[in-house]
């Protein structure tokens, strides 16, 4: 079984092709604003490296948020068009799950992403990656209050927060991510959509 993993939910492109338990190709590189230009050519370069064709993928796993709204849409659009067009099974995971799964520490995992104005996108998972707090858009203070109730935890993020002294940096462990989610139920590609965890500002001010 060959898996294509795509995560463009931050300024980084995280993508890999995994065959059974072997990593065939991977990319983990910061592109920022040029992600929209570079994401697809970089993904294609992994196929070329391995002499693979697009149809040689058996399942696509795409991160559908939370994170950069524009970023999420880039990866989700590529993945859903790919899966729809070639009829390839596809499923989604959250960026926060990927962050927690990739941790090497035997602690409670608190992945978080800066959502500005004092807010973060965050979730809490126990040592065995069982969800304690579901992914949400939450005030950083409120998240810290939740964390204080827990015994031994780590914050995981590639963003910096003045309020947090120690943060474990995130770098995806592609093999762990794939082995964890490879059997996750597939979704109709038409219905693959970002999960922003937040309304647009226009909608919020209308509420």
């Amino acid at each position: 079984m060959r898996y294509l993993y795509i995560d463009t939910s931050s300024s980084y492109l995280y993508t890999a092709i995994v065959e059974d338990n072997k990593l065939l190709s991977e990319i983990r590189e910061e592109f920022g604003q040029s992600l929209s230009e570079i994401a697809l050519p970089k993904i294609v370069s992994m196929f070329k490296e391995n002499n693979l064709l697009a149809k040689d993928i058996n399942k696509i796993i795409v991160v559908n948020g939370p994170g950069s709204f524009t970023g999420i849409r880039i990866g989700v659009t590529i993945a859903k068009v790919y899966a729809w067009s070639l009829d390839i099974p596809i499923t989604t995971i959250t960026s926060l799950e990927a962050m927690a799964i990739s941790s090497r520490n035997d602690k409670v995992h608190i992945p978080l992403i800066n959502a500005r104005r004092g807010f973060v996108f965050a979730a809490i998972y126990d040592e065995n990656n069982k969800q304690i707090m579901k992914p949400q858009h939450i005030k950083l203070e409120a998240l810290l209050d939740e964390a204080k109730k827990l015994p031994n935890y780590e914050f995981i993020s590639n963003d910096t927060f003045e309020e947090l002294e120690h943060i474990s940096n995130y770098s995806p462990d592609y093999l762990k991510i794939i082995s964890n989610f490879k059997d996750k139920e597939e979704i109709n590609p038409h219905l693959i959509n970002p999960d922003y965890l937040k309304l647009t500002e226009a909608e919020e001010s209308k509420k």
Partner: protein
Amino acid sequence: MTEKKDIFILGIESSCDETSASIVKNGTEELATTISSQIDIHKDFGGVVPEIASRHHVKNITFILEECLEKAKMKMEDIDAIAITYGPGLIGSLLIGLEAAKTLSFLYNKLLIPVHHIAGHIYANSLVKELNFPLLAVVVSGGHTELIEMTDHFQFKKLGGTLDDAIGECYDKVARVMGLEYPGGPKLDKLALEGKITYKLPVPLKDDSYNFSFSGLKSAVINLVHNEEQRGNPLRNADLAASFQKVAVESITSKVRKAIKDKNIKNVILAGGVAANKILRASIQNLSDELNVQLSIPPMKYCTDNAAMIAAAGYYAYKNGRISNLNLNSKSQDTLN
């Protein structure tokens, strides 16, 4: 080898609030077009909200593509090349179409053709009638007011354009002051037919250039409305609409007249959303008759954003060798050339 092969272009457009796909044969024959419009969604906000538009594009994109292929009874394998609106437009919206087009280009090893949105509006006319050069394209929409001279396919020269607001933008803002619901431009056009020209408004930028200016006219209307309100005079909306239309259309027509004469134009094309405006259509029609030039006005369905025009333009771009690799990016602004 002597037989000429038909060329099928898949066009994709997502530059604003319409997600659209279309398949066009040889740049002239529309086989199938699908459009998902978000007008009703943005109406509640008084205009297009970029983030909401982007969210809907990503939801719609595969449905739109599937329906288009089904309508045309074709498979991706039958397509020769993919034409995509790379800009100008809302960047978040453009990116959805772009990533979809790039992905399909990779999956099926098809050529990728970047198309400027305005080139699309101009080429909407080639779906109706063959273009005749030298040509003058009068591009009037919510984002553009431009006079473009074409000496041949994909040879664009901008003669002039608006120095401030686009005409469609001006229409929508004036309509808003008059209390008409978004998008107010078409409603204002309809209302004007019932009114008389009674209000005096300044004709903008009466000069020797090919340029336009609409912000002064917009301000004049806003001031007029406020002054009438303060004096307690009831506003005669239909008359105001008629008076405004006369001045706005006159401004366009006079510059078009000058361009036709200066550049020896054979074919005038009206393109863009405001090309649906009845009074503008009539005025340019009269001018074309008077100066004996061919006038092409696209049918209403091609005036708003659609992918058929992108596929049509894509065919001529393809013939001109305008091909891109997968590094193509969207641009919120870009000159037509």
